[in-house]
């Protein structure tokens, strides 16, 4: 068990609900992954559309914690209003705060992010800021009242894995009390395991599961990778060495010191 915000969870995998071939595959993949937190979003709806209602019913039946996002927001004002709308619609004070600063990389705007985070934490939100692996920005977000940080692995949807494991490791070492969730860019189960081995508290995956040939099996694979990586971190990994060191005992090696050796 671990604690996310004020909630006790078993799984350290959070998953997104977008890009799946069908709603049925999405719900099956979420179940197979063991994830207990699922991200959702808000979009414009015309009166005749009833899709929002149907989607929300589907998510409710999964019996998971929902984490709404502010995806697509580019200004502090948009992000704050979106967070407030999400709180009323999804009946949760959790918000994955995205303030995007660059359209090509979808890199977060750190200045807008800190400003929006400060406003929302004062309003009682549990802010999950989508940020880079910049340690100083991370500190500013903690000062703004965040307890959770979501550094990217690599750009959203790129599947490039962890671009900068060294900085994630540094964040872990320097911010031992923050909850670190690697969000974005993870492509393979081994990327997720690596993030967990570095000491991150959890990972959030969407595209890597939804765009797999078999999303349900990939959901299960990520569930296992995250659990294995965490167990490895907790068990304490051996130190790397410069040279080989035989694992099989040398004493009593057959044919030792015979001709030709």
């Amino acid at each position: 068990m671990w604690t996310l915000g004020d909630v006790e969870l078993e799984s350290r995998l959070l998953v997104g609900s977008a890009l799946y071939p069908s709603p049925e595959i999405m719900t099956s993949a979420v179940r197979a992954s063991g994830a207990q937190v699922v991200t959702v979003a808000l979009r414009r709806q015309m009166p005749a559309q009833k899709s929002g209602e149907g989607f929300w019913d589907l998510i409710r039946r999964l019996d998971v914690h929902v984490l709404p996002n502010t995806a697509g927001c580019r200004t502090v004002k948009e992000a704050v209003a979106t967070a407030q709308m999400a709180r009323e619609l999804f009946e949760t004070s959790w918000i994955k705060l995205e303030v995007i600063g660059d359209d090509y990389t979808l890199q977060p705007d750190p200045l807008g992010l800190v400003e929006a985070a400060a406003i929302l934490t004062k309003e009682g939100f549990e802010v999950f800021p989508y940020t880079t692996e910049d340690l100083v920005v991370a500190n500013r977000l903690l000062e703004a009242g965040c307890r959770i940080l979501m550094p990217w692995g690599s750009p959203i949807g790129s599947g490039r894995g962890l671009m900068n494991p060294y900085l994630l490791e540094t964040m872990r070492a320097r911010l031992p009390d923050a909850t670190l969730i690697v969000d974005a860019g993870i492509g393979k189960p081994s990327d997720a395991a690596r993030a967990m081995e570095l000491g991150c508290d959890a990972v959030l995956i969407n595209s890597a599961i939804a765009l797999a040939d078999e999303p349900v099996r990939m959901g299960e694979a990520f569930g296992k990778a995250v659990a294995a990586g965490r167990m490895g971190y907790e068990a304490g990994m051996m130190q790397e060495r410069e040279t080989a060191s035989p694992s099989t005992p040398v004493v009593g090696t057959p044919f030792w010191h015979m001709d030709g050796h």
Partner: protein
Amino acid sequence: MRITVNGESVEVTDSATLDQLMQQLGYETAHVVVAVNLEFVPRSAYGETVVKESDQLEIVAAVAGG
């Protein structure tokens, strides 16, 4: 008067409250949430929120997201 709803220009009754307007536009208020001119308006305030000429409404619902 003309207002903008989700980026589209719409003709509605003058000085309607948000309550009346949502009904006029055909929305089920339980399944959407609203911002007027980039300010969130809670459902509890619809009755006292008067929408003015050229106000910009965003009316949103739940969708899948990452």
